[in-house]
């Protein structure tokens, strides 16, 4: 009965075909170190990092390459030892593949670590010190959002957080990297969770794992056994269960108001991969240099979960996994529901890269768009409670304000509506376009307003100056008349 009421806490969602079986393999650790690494300065939400090295400089593994800028940012470190070849613009791992600033590192093959000191017992450290070290290690949310973890830890301390949720849902099809991480490195993750609890001053944590990963659940449960403050629970398998707000409602029954951060209602959520990275940073002094990436899809002959250093080109990853480039119809970074397609494979892997998929035509959704038949499947699967069909209809006739009124800004781009649509309408594509367009229009309007303000101010200033000049002139004439009058009086007197 209780579980029935809990089910009511899940809104919308789809049961996407999982396609995880082919990739549910142990993590591969022997990825050959690439000759060159292309390390973007922006691999996180916020401001890009600022380089602190010079071209030609020799760096060691783990050495700081670029420091963080401002409050929301993250530093970048050398994933291996070698020489800096270049700091310049290279194509970004983004659908546009527009160039962004990257550091090119030529590896020397020695993989020589920078010597660091670690605290013997991190639980003796201040909570602030934990945050500082997590920030200095360049850790960001590894579930895909890449929000700097230190900011969340600090917000956790400032707000009274009662529950830390560790997201082990991994609801995207194909992806298995978190699943394997939980199975193979459960103790490290749990340690990371304890360190996070310490860093935030929070009492309890819940690790939520979808019930299609029973082995990961058992491993995590065993690892969490000694610690009463950490509870491991199974959650239903339903995309998008890993959406932070869906998970928060399922686990705590609380709903995050629009425009608020979850910390404001006493909950913070981190990914299992992030917890693992925190463990490595605090216990071993290792900054975030690599991550486990799922390489999967019909065109991949050797699908695997492989630990790769950041900056590795996808093409090298594909060569290692024996991807059939002939069959590859689309390359996707991330999962097939929310991931973005990439135009080519000469792009680096970054902190956000949970998976790289090489999909064949058979696996892709049909793109032959048909008229909307108002079946309302999109309404029933939307976890945010939107009406995608009405939004899309308004966007199609360029009524973007109407789309915003219908809740365009509350769309989380989870892809459920596009997934279920029998007419193959690329709804998320519509919404992303409209959001970008609305923002551009707002900027243009803002600019026009600013320009108008400046012009008005200038006109007022000129008017003031002219007025002043007129007054001065009048005063001068009056003074002159006065002088002449006085002069005349003196003359008469004389």
């Amino acid at each position, binding site marked *: 009965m209780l579980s029935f009421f809990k089910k009511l806490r899940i*809104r919308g969602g*789809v049961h*996407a075909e999982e396609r995880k079986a082919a990739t549910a393999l142990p993590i591969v650790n022997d990825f050959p170190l690439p000759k060159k690494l292309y390390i973007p300065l922006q691999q996180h939400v916020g401001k890009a990092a600022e380089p602190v090295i010079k071209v030609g400089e020799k760096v060691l593994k783990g050495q700081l390459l670029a420091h963080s800028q401002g409050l929301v940012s993250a530093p970048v470190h050398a994933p291996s030892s070698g020489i800096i070849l270049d700091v310049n613009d290279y194509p970004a791992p983004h*659908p546009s593949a527009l160039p962004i600033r990257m550091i090119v590192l030529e590896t020397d093959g020695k993989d020589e670590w920078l010597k660091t000191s670690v605290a013997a017992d991190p639980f003796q450290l201040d909570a602030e010190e934990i945050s500082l070290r997590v920030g200095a290690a360049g850790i960001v949310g590894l579930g895909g959002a890449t929000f700097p973890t230190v900011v969340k830890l600090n917000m956790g301390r400032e707000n009274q957080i009662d529950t830390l949720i560790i997201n082990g849902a991994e609801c995207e099809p194909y992806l298995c990297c978190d699943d394997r991480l939980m199975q193979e490195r459960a103790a490290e993750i749990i340690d990371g969770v304890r360190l996070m609890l310490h860093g935030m001053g929070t009492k309890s944590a819940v690790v939520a794992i979808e019930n299609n990963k029973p082995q990961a659940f058992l491993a995590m449960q065993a690892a969490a056994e000694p610690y009463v403050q950490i509870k491991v629970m199974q959650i239903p398998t339903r995309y998008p269960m890993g959406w932070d*707000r869906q998970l928060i409602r399922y686990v705590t029954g609380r*709903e995050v*108001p*629009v425009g*608020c951060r979850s910390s*404001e*209602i*006493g909950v913070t959520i981190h990914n299992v991969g992030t917890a693992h990275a925190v463990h490595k940073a605090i216990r071993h002094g290792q900054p975030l240099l690599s991550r486990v990436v799922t390489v999967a899809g019909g065109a991949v002959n050797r699908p695997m979960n492989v630990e790769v250093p950041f900056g590795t080109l996808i093409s090298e990853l594909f060569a290692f996994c024996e991807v059939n*480039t002939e069959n590859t*119809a*689309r390359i*996707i970074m991330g999962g*097939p*529901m929310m*991931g*973005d*397609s*990439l*135009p*080519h494979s000469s792009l680096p892997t970054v902190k956000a890269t949970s998976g790289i998929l090489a*999909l064949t035509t058979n*696996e*892709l*959704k*049909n*793109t032959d768009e*048909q*008229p909307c*038949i*108002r*079946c*309302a499947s999109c*309404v*029933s699967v*939307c*976890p*945010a*409670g939107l*009406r995608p*069909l009405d939004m899309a209809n308004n966007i199609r006739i360029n009524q973007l304000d109407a789309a915003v009124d219908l*809740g365009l800004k*509350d769309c989380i781009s989870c*892809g*459920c509506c*596009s*997934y*279920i*649509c*029998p*007419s*193959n309408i*690329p*709804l*998320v*594509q519509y919404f*992303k376009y409209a959001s970008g367009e609305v923002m551009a229009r707002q900027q243009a309007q803002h600019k026009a307003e600013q320009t108008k303000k400046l012009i008005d101010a200038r006109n007022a200033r000129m008017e003031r100056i002219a007025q002043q000049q007129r007054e001065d002139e009048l005063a001068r004439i009056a003074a002159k008349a006065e002088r002449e009058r006085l002069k005349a009086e003196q003359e008469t007197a004389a």
Partner: protein
Amino acid sequence: MITHLKPNSGAHVGANNSVSRIMWQVMFALMPATAFGLFCFGWPAFNLFVVTLLSALFFEAFCVRLRGKAVKPVIMDGSALLTGWLLAMTLPPWAPWWIGVVGSGLAIILGKQVYGGLGQNLFNPAMLARVALLISFPIEMTTWANVSPIILASSPDFIEGLRITFLGLVNIDASTGATTLGFVKTEFSQNHLLTDILKDNSNFLNLIGWTRGSLGETSSLLLSLGGLWLLQQKVIQWQIPVSLLLTVALLAQVFHGIDSEHYISPLLHLNSGALMCVALFIATDYVTSPNTATGQLVFGASCGLLIFIIRTWGAYPEGAGFAVLLMNSATPLIDHYIKPRIYGRDRKGKPLEIPKS
């Protein structure tokens, strides 16, 4: 370098579904009731069915051609065929051929294509055509053939069937009669009581469809089987059929309980006329029904209410078509007022307040 089909965002994989698949699933669900109707009413019904479907396809192709679009993909989506099929099911089985042609023309041209084609229409095309035919051609649309199974020697053979469909029925009184609801209405007007009126009526025959009525609407049993299959396939949702049938049944029960001589029983309501067909196949039309679960409950219940009112106090014995059309026109209104609550917002769209603890 790899060439791409269409670089984009959003779900790159999809559910195994398509518009034509949905249309074919509905037609599949209609098959048992249609087959039974064709069996009961013989060759003339078969001719009318074929004529209606073919002319629906013709008008669709004609309109698509006028709009300068490729005909084949539009025909292949199955929507015109389904519209023709639904219309044929609601026609008197021995109606002349031109009823089918005119009906299909009304449904496809005035019911659907003038609005812009699939998904754009305000009214259910089949119901629009049926109601327009009923008002324009009341004689043809209320001439109900006796049950005359195709296997009986006394039933019209193939040639005789062609003659009935294309040249008209000669000996009308011998082979036609009134539907149950029509009979009840006429008898009421002569101040007869229900016990007298219904002494020859059999609920069992009504259930299986061995009775006078529209071509495919007589068998409540087979229609509900098809509808249940659609529910199981998740092509339709339960909200509209359940709220519609429940409303009719409850109202009928209340009035029948008060005066059982002047108000027919819920069972007769459910088993007769177009109720089952409308509840499961017409009112559940995606295009013309609301798109939230609550909206669908309101829509279904209102349809049920209107059907009961028209049947009980209206001039027509059957009100399902009128009720559906009226509620179709209210659908945009329902969708405007009944919408899902957005996550993190209250029903009015304001952000939720942070709970004080």
